[in-house]
């Protein structure tokens, strides 16, 4: 790397090789208990993340979409170990995280960082932004002067001139500028992967475009892998290589972005895509693609969780939960959790059995 990057921590080496996925999550589960009654017993559970498995390949951007309450943010927090998981494994570049002989949490955080939606509350209001950015390198053993140099370089890199901005406090910055600081801070440990949880959702459109361009440049420059969580389907289409669609704590569709946007195979994905608004007033939507709000994640419907809003729901959808299937490690594979797609599932629109 250039002399500019020498002030920074070295990026951790690629241990598993190109073919080893950056991140493998298998059968992740996290239920939040709801307590009540005199004995404060668990009366119900919110199944925020319910048996989710997926893979993030090296150098790609995996987009994650879904309505509010579908578990996108909980998933991000599980991956970052900001929340303990109930069960499941997280494997970072071939090493299981947080297990005996596995990757220690400290090393995971060095390799994987997160940018949050609320740019203000995720910065310490009492620290000048330069110190916020320099904080993590200091914790990881970098000297004061060097950490400061790193911070200034990164601020420059994200488009904030350090001589103007380094000493400012978060309340002196606009939303877009604060989000740039958050991105600089996430890069301070020279991570290999960033989790961006609605990182541009709170920004104005013109600023959103600037930040998206910045994310693109940084990705190339620092050889980053992104997991990009958003509810904005236009933005996800623009930034992602592959897309994962979530509904009520489960993955319903996972595949390459072009395949999913051109031929969505899950009725929920299709409905979500139909809700995208265009700027052409001649194409007004007359009937809503989906009716009702997303159901409560407490006591979700039996069988397929989408069946209560699905126009194609049949008896089989109530009786049996459709499975997403195993991912075969090929980026072009397209998985769908819907009985209409699985041959011989018993749904009247399913292809005849035995083909797969």
């Amino acid at each position, binding site marked *: 790397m250039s002399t500019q990057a020498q002030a920074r921590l070295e990026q951790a080496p690629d241990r598993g090789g190109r073919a080893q996925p950056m991140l493998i999550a298998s059968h992740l589960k996290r239920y939040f208990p709801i307590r009540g009654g005199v004995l404060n017993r668990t009366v119900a559970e919110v199944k925020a993340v319910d048996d989710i498995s997926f893979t993030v390949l090296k150098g790609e951007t995996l987009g994650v979409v879904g309505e509010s309450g579908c578990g996108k943010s909980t998933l991000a927090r599980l991956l970052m170990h900001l929340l303990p998981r109930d069960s499941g494994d997280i494997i970072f570049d071939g090493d299981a995280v947080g297990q005996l002989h596995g990757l220690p949490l400290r090393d995971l955080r060095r390799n994987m960082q997160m940018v949050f939606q609320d740019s203000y509350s995720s910065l310490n209001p009492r620290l000048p932004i330069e110190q916020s950015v320099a904080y993590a390198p200091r914790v990881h053993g970098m000297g004061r002067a060097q950490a400061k140099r790193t911070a200034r370089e990164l601020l420059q890199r994200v488009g904030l001139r350090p001589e103007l901005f380094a000493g400012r406090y978060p309340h002196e910055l606009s939303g877009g500028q604060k989000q740039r600081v958050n991105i600089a801070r996430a890069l301070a440990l020279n991570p290999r992967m960033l989790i961006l949880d609605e990182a541009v959702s709170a920004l104005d459109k013109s600023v959103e475009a600037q930040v998206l361009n910045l994310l693109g440049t940084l990705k190339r420059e620092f050889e980053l892998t992104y997991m990009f969580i958003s509810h904005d389907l236009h933005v996800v289409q623009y*930034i992602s290589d592959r897309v994962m669609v979530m509904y009520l704590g489960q993955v319903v569709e996972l595949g390459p972005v072009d395949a999913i946007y051109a031929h969505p195979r899950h009725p929920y994905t299709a409905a979500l895509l139909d809700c995208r608004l265009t700027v052409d*007033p001649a194409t007004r939507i*007359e009937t809503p693609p989906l009716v009702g709000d*997303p159901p409560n994640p407490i006591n979700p419907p039996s069988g397929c969780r989408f069946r209560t809003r699905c126009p194609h729901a049949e008896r089989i959808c109530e009786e049996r939960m459709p499975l997403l299937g195993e991912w075969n490690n090929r980026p072009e594979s397209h998985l769908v959790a819907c009985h209409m797609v699985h041959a011989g599932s018993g749904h009247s629109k399913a292809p005849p059995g035995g083909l797969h």
Partner: protein
Amino acid sequence: MDMSARPLVEVRDLQVNFVSREANVAAVNGVSFDLMPSEVLCIIGESGSGKSVTMRSILRLHPPRRTVIRGHIRVGDYDILSLSERAMNEVRGAVVSMVFQEPMTALDPVYRIGDQIAETVMRHEGCSHADAMARALELMELVKVPSPERRLRAFPHELSGGLRQRAMMAVALSCRPTLLLADEPTTALDATVQIQVLIMLRKLQRDFGMGVIFVTHDLGVAAQIADKVAVMYAGRIIEYGSVADVLMRPAHPYTLGLLSSTVHGQSRETEIEAIPGSPPDLRHLPPGCSFAPRCKFAIPACSASFPPLVAVGPNHAASCLRVDVVRQDSMALAS
């Protein structure tokens, strides 16, 4: 639309300043527009452009001691800025009502939904509580809340975001206002719920024959609902026209920039054409066009004085010295 009819709303040279000991913020700097009865006007702009401030001035919701409002606002037969506070209370809710972005903060958390709707009805129509509750039930059915009887007895926190927004709309519609002000009412909602609320709002607007002023930062939402569009930047309307004219044939560089920086189906290989820089500081506005420092079409004359609105078509105007050049660019974008 009947062109001879009198506009429902007339705003002339509205200026709003927020004055404190430290600063004088010029939030709105000379805004004028008309709204015909049962017309939908979308005010588009980014945060700090003055779109919400303009709208709140129509209901006089600004703190009187720290706000200086100049200009003229007429709604129906009411001269808003000269009304007494008591007369203003008669206007609010009955003639003009408003829905807000965040229903959780706009609804009172300690009262049931039904009582909140009934309160407005009783206040303006002087009917009994039972009659008002019957009316509340009607309204909840109108805004398509499922199992409305049960929801009338619910507290705001017991409803989902979409239902809360519908309940707030029921409060706003309870006295059949002639003008509805909507401040980003769908921004906090999921896309699947947003489109349901927009379709419903469109239908109610037609059924009631209401005039609607709808503030949004989302061009896609404006395309769904607006008849006319006004684009605001740094407290001024910089482009005004029919929704098709403004969104499909923009004449102001800022509108053009907003359209090209909005992500919709661009190729992943190219960067998005973002507007460089950031909006001006409203405490120290430059004398000329406020957009000139960020504008790729700017010429020295732009910084001399604020450009007047120039007609670029029937009912379509932009305040830019370089509309001809911009129009060529926007034609290229459209084709």
